[in-house]
């Protein structure tokens, strides 16, 4: 029988080492991304930023109710892991993944209708703002239960596998989600079944007010992959090129049937957990430091050096985005709100209206012998 020490070493040889995979992302061998790709990465980040800042303003103006969970500051991660997905690929979104709809192609009109809780929204006004799905593009309508979308995602991945479909599920969650049993059961199942799914852990160092060291005793969440026999990779979540490269590699693995990957993206949310959170639990210095590492400006500098960016081009893009956003806002604000009784719809495949509104009373039928 092997010695205990030997046992410990075994797996490394059995499974792709996170390190190996990670380093390969930084080997000079890796060809530079096409200019068109760089441009699109930037355009999308700028669009996401523009859309969310506008959403935040609308919320502060009280033009829609509920709440919003902005990913401002995290665009490099959201964009890098979801660009170039196929329509048949699925996204399992978290509460902070609203902008991934923009990546997948959900019409902006519908997204704003969702924020406004209008009947024209994909959920007809049921879900809270930002908790949005879109069936035609395989974006799961999320609950609010943290990590639950990952587990549903494994089932979609299982269906791809059973049908030998070369598609992938991008499952998004945060550092806090990794403490939940649901997260563990999902990743373990994906490991055992070699499912085509990429678990993107967006490590923004906080779960609401709770800092990472109270969430887990490790500082690199990618280490957790070791326990599931899948590769774990950590990338700078504010470097959209690094994120995109890592994601593409993981997506490739998945499509080719080599199974799941855990991709940790280290980033930071600029604002509170939600629009009603002043985020007093973070120091101004920390926030400032991270804002200086703005993924957008970083990309601008990089592209400017390559002669791919000008202020004029940016303005042009912004003008286009603002126009599109304004149309979406108009659509949402002119959309009807569902009527009260519509709350009774879509409970089952059959209608429950009659049952729910049943006012009948029964009285004795006397045409019977009674004792």
């Amino acid at each position, binding site marked *: 029988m092997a010695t205990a020490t030997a046992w410990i070493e075994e797996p490394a040889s059995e499974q792709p080492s996170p390190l190996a995979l990670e380093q390969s992302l930084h080997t000079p061998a890796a060809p530079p991304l096409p200019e068109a790709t760089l441009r699109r990465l930037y355009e999308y980040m700028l669009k996401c930023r523009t859309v969310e800042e506008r959403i935040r303003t609308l919320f502060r103006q009280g033009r829609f109710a509920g709440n919003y969970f902005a990913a401002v500051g995290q665009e490099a991660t959201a964009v890098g892991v979801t660009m170039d997905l196929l329509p048949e690929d699925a996204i399992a979104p978290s509460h902070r993944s609203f902008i991934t709809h923009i990546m997948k192609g959900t019409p902006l009109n519908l997204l704003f209708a969702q924020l406004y809780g209008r009947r024209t*929204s*994909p*959920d*007809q006004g*049921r*879900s809270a703002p930002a*908790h949005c*799905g879109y*069936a035609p593009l395989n974006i*799961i*309508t999320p*609950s609010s*239960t943290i990590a*639950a979308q990952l*587990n*549903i*995602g*494994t*089932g*979609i*991945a*299982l*269906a*791809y596998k*059973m049908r030998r479909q070369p598609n992938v599920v991008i499952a998004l969650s945060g550092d806090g989600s990794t403490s939940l*049993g*649901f997260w563990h*059961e*999902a990743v*373990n*199942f994906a490991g*055992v079944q070699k499912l085509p799914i990429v678990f993107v852990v967006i490590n923004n160092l906080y779960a609401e007010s709770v800092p990472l060291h109270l969430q887990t005793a490790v500082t690199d969440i990618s280490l957790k992959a070791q326990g599931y026999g899948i590769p774990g990779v950590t990338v700078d979540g504010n470097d959209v090129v690094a994120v995109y490269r890592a994601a593409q590699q993981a997506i490739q693995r998945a499509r080719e049937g080599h199974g799941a990957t855990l991709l940790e993206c280290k980033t930071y949310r600029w604002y509170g957990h939600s629009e009603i959170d002043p985020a007093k639990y973070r120091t101004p210095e920390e926030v400032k430091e991270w804002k200086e590492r703005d993924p957008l400006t970083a990309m601008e500098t990089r592209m400017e050096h390559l002669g791919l960016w000008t202020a004029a081009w940016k303005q042009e893009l912004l003008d286009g985005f603002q126009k599109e956003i304004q149309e979406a806002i108009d659509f949402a604000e002119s959309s009807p709100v569902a009527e009260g009784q519509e709350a009774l*719809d*879509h*409970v*089952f*495949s059959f209608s*429950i209206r009659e*049952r729910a509104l*049943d006012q*009948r*009373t*029964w*009285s*004795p*039928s006397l045409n*019977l*012998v*009674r*004792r």
Partner: protein
Amino acid sequence: MPVMTYIDAINTALREELARDENVYLIGEDVGKMGGVFKATRGLQEEFGVDRVIDSPLAEGVIVSSSIGAAMSGLRPVAEIQFADFITPAMDALTQQAARLRYRSAGTQTCPLTVRVCYGGGVGGGLYHSQTNTSWFIHTPGLVVVAPSSPSDAKGLLKSAIRDDNPVMFFEHKKLYRSLKEEVSSGDYTIPLLKADIKRSGTHITAVSYGYTLQLTLQAAERMKQEHGIDVEVIDLRTLAPWDKDTILNSVARTSRVVIVHEDNRTLGIGAEIAATIAEQAFDCLDAPIVRVTPPDIPAIPAAAPMEEFYMPNVDKIMAAMQRVIRY
């Protein structure tokens, strides 16, 4: 028609559905190579392969939640929960995900999955192998909850459950698995969900039950006839949620006396909802108090036989209740 046990009827229904529809697959603990701890899936992995009869990791949560995703994608998962006592890890998947996916997506995303749950006491299983916890799910709109009381019902209802477009929880009573045989049509028949079944008609008392206690109720009804000349109408709920109000209230309008029997805890067992509904919508019909025959409100069924007997409904307890509403 072949004579079958309840477990054979379930095994047959699963085999026929796996053969009929390539989208159907089974997943659960020990359902594959071992064929299930009660042998409900016996022989199915050999016949349909490891991709369609999956031995899952020991994790009820992902057994159900992965099935939700697969169902969203057009498959027809049939998940097994080995014992109802161990369904708690799947509580979020069932109540927050499966029950609400259609609702929160306004009908654009749905999960036609079936979750088979082995439940019930009376077999000396003790605190953690005897539970009946249907109430948690009856109380969760969006879930269809079914519980067959006989082999032929088991086959026909399970087929309907698998073909239904809603998440269906299918509660199988472990004491019925082998204690009861009957003729089961070998054909491909289904029994409609959402409808109760009048298993015995009568004019003096409406007795409502489901699962194992339905059989006890039938025995009590027979003895009431033999020994007291009382005609008891026995209604099998079959579907516990949404339950078939009309069949029951129509019967009460004829009999004016009601006895409800179940094995779930008394407080907020389904008997409470049925009684409350009658007291609100058929108040005029009542000539006597509505009597529930249930276990006491204790955390679970103890292992020692005398305590289990004390816990379980039985024919004598049911007859005493029937006497009470008649004598009233």
